[in-house]
């Protein structure tokens, strides 16, 4: 068959015109069954319900805010980290602007080898930090968070990352949901990308965060299956977090603690108006490393450590089951299925790949923009985010191909070799013991 460039578009349109709906569904079953249903249909249904209940929800939120202001509880803001000294002054400035001010600021320096101890102690002396605790030996993020927890005295614990900054009402807003229901023991903040103009890599992550964090978590929270409170910005009831023993060894400790709270019978929710800005990796190499770590933690915690949530037992909870099952299904199962789908297409439609691949990209391209519209509905920073719209066209390559390959590699490494225990993110002394104990 001779190849003529001028015939490509007419042939492509003619092909899909004649193929018929049943064959279209057969070829794009993966997209229609999973992607379209989950990210378009459900998102828009929830967006519609969300919009319809907006007034009622706002009233409920306002009532809870009044209760919070009336009680004005003492809160402990804890920030564990290593070599974060350079961010500390800006962070204290950001926190000084908060509408909620009845909090203590505890910073744990987890064995920093830069100027962090000097900076931290100076800020403590100046009264900008309430407690600066220095660990001479690095113990890992979980141990640093637990140390801060041990020396906190607030009714609520707000866990932050040092390189974040916050909207002036972020801390107040993240605390409000606790006054909506006594069953709520943890609230996740809305983490957005601050450096979205820095590089293509950060732009794509900014869009991804809007989809998966800002909107994705509104949906899962609404459905009661919200399963990860970001380590960058989350609030916890101190009594509950104490009762479950604080954070366990990571990586992926933020997801792990959320599951632990759910398993102990409490609810967790997402608060979209509690806005936190963070710096995302600006290079794909760094991003790949970060995502390999995150994705390995899904196998380690959701599949292995907390496998009990999938089986009937005394503490069984459907919402926890669905929260983890959705996470594992959409990440792990669908990732494996995607490779089956690719094989299916290569075997059965090898002669039509010149039509199938462009259509596949077209579908994901269109879906990305349709999804972006739902983000537009939910967002409170619409003007700024308009900047990102041209880059939405690249999302099908970013999430559909790049992130999927990274994810597959992470699952393979963790599932067969338990590589998360070798991650230098945690000190070897802790990882070795955790691996031995099967954690």
């Amino acid at each position, binding site marked *: 068959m001779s190849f003529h460039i001028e015939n490509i578009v007419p042939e492509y349109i003619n092909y899909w015109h004649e193929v018929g709906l049943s064959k279209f569904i057969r070829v794009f079953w993966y997209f229609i069954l999973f992607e379209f249903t989950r990210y378009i249909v459900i998102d828009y249904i929830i967006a519609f319900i969300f919009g319809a209940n907006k007034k009622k929800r706002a009233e409920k939120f306002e009532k809870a805010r009044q209760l919070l202001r009336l009680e004005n509880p003492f809160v402990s803001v804890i920030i564990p980290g290593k070599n974060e000294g350079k961010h500390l002054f800006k962070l204290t400035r950001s926190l000084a602007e908060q509408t909620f001010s009845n909090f203590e600021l505890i910073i744990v320096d987890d*064995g920093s080898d830069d100027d962090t101890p000097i900076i931290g*102690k100076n800020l*403590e002396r100046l009264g900008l930090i309430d*407690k*600066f*605790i*220095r*660990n*001479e*030996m*690095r*113990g*890992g993020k*979980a*141990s*640093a968070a*637990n*140390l801060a927890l*041990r*020396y906190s005295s607030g009714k609520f614990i707000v866990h932050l990352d040092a390189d974040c900054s916050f909207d002036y009402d972020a801390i107040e807003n993240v605390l409000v949901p606790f006054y909506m229901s006594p069953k709520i023991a943890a609230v996740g903040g809305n983490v957005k990308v601050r450096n979205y103009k820095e590089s293509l890599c950060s732009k794509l992550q900014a869009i991804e965060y809007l989809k998966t964090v800002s909107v994705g978590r509104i949906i899962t929270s609404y459905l009661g299956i919200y399963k990860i409170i970001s380590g960058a910005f989350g609030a916890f009831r101190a009594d509950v977090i104490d009762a479950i*023993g*604080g*954070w*366990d*060894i990571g990586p992926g400790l933020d997801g792990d603690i959320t599951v632990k709270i759910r398993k102990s019978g409490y609810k967790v929710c997402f608060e979209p108006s509690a806005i936190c800005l963070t710096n995302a990796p600006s290079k794909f190499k760094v991003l790949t490393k970060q995502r390999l770590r995150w994705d390995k933690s899904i196998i380690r915690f959701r599949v292995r450590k907390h496998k009990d949530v999938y089986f009937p037992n005394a503490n069984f909870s459907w919402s926890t089951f669905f929260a983890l099952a959705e996470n594992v299904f959409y990440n792990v199962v669908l990732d494996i299925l995607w490779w089956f789908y690719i094989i299916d297409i290569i075997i059965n439609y090898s002669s039509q790949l010149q039509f199938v691949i462009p259509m596949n990209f077209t579908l994901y391209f269109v879906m990305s923009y349709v999804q972006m519209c739902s983000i537009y509905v939910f967002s409170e920073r619409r003007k700024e985010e308009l900047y990102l719209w041209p880059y939405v066209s690249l999302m099908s390559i970013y999430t559909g191909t790049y992130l999927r390959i990274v994810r597959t590699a992470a699952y393979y490494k963790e599932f067969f070799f338990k590589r998360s225990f070798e991650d230098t993110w945690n000190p070897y*002394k*802790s990882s*070795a*013991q*955790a691996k*031995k*104990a099967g*954690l």
Partner: protein
Amino acid sequence: MLNVLRHNDRTNKIQFSGYTLLRVDHISSIQQESLTFVDAIIIDTENNEHATDLVFFIRKNADLAIALKPIFINNTCQLNKTFEIHTDGYIDLNELSIAINRVDIITKRSKRISHKNTVGHDYQVKQKILAFLFTRNSTIVPITNRASLIGYSFPFIDLFYKEEEVMSKLSMLEKSVECGHLSTNLKDFVHLCKRCHGNYLNFVEACPKCDSIDIKAQDIVHHFVCAHVAPEKDFKTKDGLACPKCDKQLRHIGIDYDKPSSMYSCNCCNHEFQTAKMIAKCIDCNAENELSALIKKAIGSYSITSAGEEWLRGGEEQSSQVSLLNDGVMTLSLFKIIASQELKRITISKSTSQIAHILFVNERLDTFDDATKKLLVKEIGAIIKSYLLPSDVMAADNYNSYYLLLPETKEQFPKRLETIQYNLGKLLGDNLQERLLDIKIQTHQLIEKETVDSIIKQFHK
């Protein structure tokens, strides 16, 4: 050779090798004597109080020649060691030749000193110290002394300062080193209480919140496997250490757990903290000093420099006080030369010029401490200069006395002098509640055949 002349019960004069040594046991003995004709004094008493009175009387004498007289202690008398350092040592009355040799040197060197009419305590003391070092040809070495507020006694120097005037003493020494008249060899650093300047400090760790010293340190334990971190007391059981989070036994440090840091807890306010506040409690006045508030001072031995010797011999007329003034203020000697030139000029040009003298009556400025004096003098210099014409010349004699040469000025009391008087009065009034009357400004029109010295003398009448 030995010739003892007994005058009364308490004084004896010893003549030896042409020198007269006065043997005394009580201050009343020397009050009756004319010390000018005595070459050395021998303290002949075991009563420390009497001996101290004698040394004070001699060393504090306004006449430098008397203040520098050698003072010996009869070696048959045993006096307090902290007192001995202010004398020229012990003397054996049967072996006077060694001491006489010393007397000879001191006397000869004393004659080489130009006796200055000085103003101000520090200035007089400095002169005495330099003269003492010069006549003894030695070094003043500080001696550790438990009884001293700063832990060190300075031979000779300590006689001129009360115990509580330690800062003035050290400051005078620092200034003398700064202007090159003394050289120092560092021996130690002392940290002094901000309130009483004492060196007897008790360093204690305290709670940064309530300043209580009732604090206790606890090791922090990190259990690797479950990431639980808490003070050691949380892990303590009858059998050792067990994790309160996962109930596991902690057996092996470095394998099961480690101790990454320690925390203090305050038994008074329950505050928990990692960096304890260090407090230096003064034993003498009970003041609680933060370490950063302690006054750090160098303790050294002091020797006179060649510049200091030159200064003593009168080679440097202007006082170091003048150096405190701003640029554009000349020394009195230079002023005299320029004024003499002006006298010659007006003789030829038949013009009229004035010399003015600004005087702070009763040497008011000398009553203030050094820091205030320094600031005031700078301000005074700046005020005077700001109202002078570009052709006017200003000189300073000392803190209290300033001369102005006002060429081509016909008025008896020019307007600019009125302004200067008003502003200086205001400066003193605003800062020191001093009255305007305390500033005296005199003018003198230059006349042919006059000398500048005679004009200056007239001002001081």
